[in-house]
């Protein structure tokens, strides 16, 4: 897999932000704050990794935010030993249903997952209208604790990112995924079972959303039914900022993860500068626009 120039854009931006913030923002460059950024960004990194599978397949999944909410409320109201299987089960089921429906109904994935998002949101609120339960102790220590002096989520997130990167770039599945996203028809003619590849990409996304939901629950400490609201758009923004084209066919797990870290870094810095949430939102919009415009994919012969 060749390395495209624009893939380095996000690394450059990350480096610039870290250097500028270390020099100019008091309280940024110390161990506590860096650990804080790592913990804050972990949920979004996992969601960005999952969304990358779907986007490379040429699809989009708007349902992950609601899926995270569902995992949060279910895991908060069940015994600690069961939460992992609940989270993975819910993620698997949702990814499977979405993938199968995309294949059988042949409708645009944006519309389908918009429907799924609405349905899962409804299910979350039918289950509970207010915050319920509390995270299992092991979730709290995973999300907020340290192992050997570093945040406990860091090795988990790095390992997951490594596995995703390996899956996309170094396995037959990854190759077939990129072929399917590049041209579903050509991939099918080449003997790739594109239906199966698409279902697998949605399942991967669902599973990662399940894990992200558990970590989010550990961080917020209660089963808040709106916990995941809007995260699907942040994840898509991270994927695109990372240089992965929404047209599908190619993408990079590493740059998606880095872009998710950049988004979390920016909000951390604006918080340290005590900038109001409203101005932060405006800034985020401007950052999205300027980065996607500066970091455009290479021109194609057609469009």
């Amino acid at each position, binding site marked *: 897999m060749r390395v495209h120039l624009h893939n380095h854009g996000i690394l450059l931006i990350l480096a610039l932000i870290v250097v500028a913030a270390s020099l100019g923002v008091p309280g940024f460059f110390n161990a506590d704050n860096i650990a804080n950024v790592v913990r804050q960004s972990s949920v979004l990194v996992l969601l960005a990794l999952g969304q990358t599978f779907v986007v490379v397949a040429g699809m989009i999944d708007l349902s992950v935010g609601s899926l995270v909410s569902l995992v949060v409320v279910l895991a908060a109201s069940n015994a600690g030993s069961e939460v992992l299987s609940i989270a993975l089960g819910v993620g698997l089921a949702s990814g499977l249903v979405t993938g199968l429906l995309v294949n059988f109904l042949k409708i*645009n994935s944006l519309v389908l997952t918009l429907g799924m998002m609405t349905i899962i949101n409804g299910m979350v*609120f039918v289950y509970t209208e207010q915050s319920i339960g509390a995270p299992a102790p092991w979730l709290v220590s995973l999300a907020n604790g340290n192992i050997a002096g570093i945040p406990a989520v860091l090795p988990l997130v790095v390992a997951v990112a490594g596995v995703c990167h390996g899956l996309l770039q170094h396995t037959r599945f990854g190759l077939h995924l990129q072929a399917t996203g590049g041209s579903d028809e050509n991939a099918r003619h080449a003997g790739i079972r594109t239906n199966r590849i698409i279902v697998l990409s949605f399942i991967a996304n669902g599973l990662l959303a399940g894990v992200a939901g558990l970590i989010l629950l550990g961080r917020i400490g209660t089963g808040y039914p709106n916990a995941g609201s809007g995260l699907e758009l942040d994840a898509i923004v991270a994927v695109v900022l990372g240089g992965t084209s929404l*047209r599908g066919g190619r993408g990079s797990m590493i740059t998606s993860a880095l872009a998710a870290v950049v988004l979390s870094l920016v909000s951390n810095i604006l918080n340290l500068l005590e900038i109001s949430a409203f101005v932060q939102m405006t800034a985020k919009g401007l950052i999205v626009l300027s980065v996607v415009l500066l970091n455009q994919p290479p021109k194609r012969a057609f469009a």
Partner: protein
Amino acid sequence: MIQQPSQNDLLVGHGRRRLRVADWAIWLVLLCLLGVGSLLSDSMLRPANLVNIMRQAAPLGIAALGVTFVMILGEVDLAVGAVISVSAVLATSLMQGSSANLFPAVATSLVVSTVIGGLNGSLVAFSRVSSFILTLGTAIFLYGCTQILTGGMAHGTVSPGFREFFNLRLGGWLPVLVIAFLLLALVALVIQRTSVFARQVYLIGANRRTARLSGLPIERTIVIAYMLSGFFAGVAGLALVARSGVSGSLAASGYEFDVLAAVILGGTSFQGGRGGVDGTVGGVLILTLAFNLVNIIGLNYHSQLIVKGLIIIIASAAYQRIGAQQGG
């Protein structure tokens, strides 16, 4: 996707999209829903209830009219919800409860909304970035702006007479707001059926490469379509103020996806090149009527979400099937 002339088009003779089953299906579904509703409740078919559904549908419907042109082009506008909010907040802030400020406030809201649409259109037309992410970016930016402007709370006071005018019921039953919705739909329909611009929108949406090779003004058409979307979203913001009387900064947060759902229900697809505002009006009415039905059955708001999601999926699947059968 390349638009093939369907067998039906050829059989019908004058080659227009109008007479395909897909275009009638939406009204059949609407009739079925009305039928089901009348079985469930005696009050369903009363004029008062029907007019009320139209009144509820007005802000969503007006915004969806403009988005339809953008989607026929094969693009998407996720900034409509934010533009509705901007328009609503601007209007009430400028009115300041005085009728002298009414016209400047309305004019400013509409001009600003149209300009925002034009900026969105320019970004989409002159970059290679997908309209999904571009308009998502402007939406986040604009929501931030409205929050800064209002401090995150309901803001401003409506001019006296503004709400009263739109809620005035002509002949004792037909609110001006509903008439405004129908008139705007008619205007959009006339644009769609008679203008060169609309013809170019369909051709560009059906096959951009061919359109470019044929020398169609692609960039200009994209910018105009987004300006229309901005303008209609601006009017929708005013309609929202007229209906509710207040404008919170997130008044229309989430509207972009309801609008998207309504346009798709109306038979305009993401691939572009087909659909139209007549279908969109049907889609808006179906969505609003479905909520009304769920209310009548007595389900709560949360169950309405589940029904809404199911409707979006089932209707899109149905269109996909009909479209495939007709080769379109």
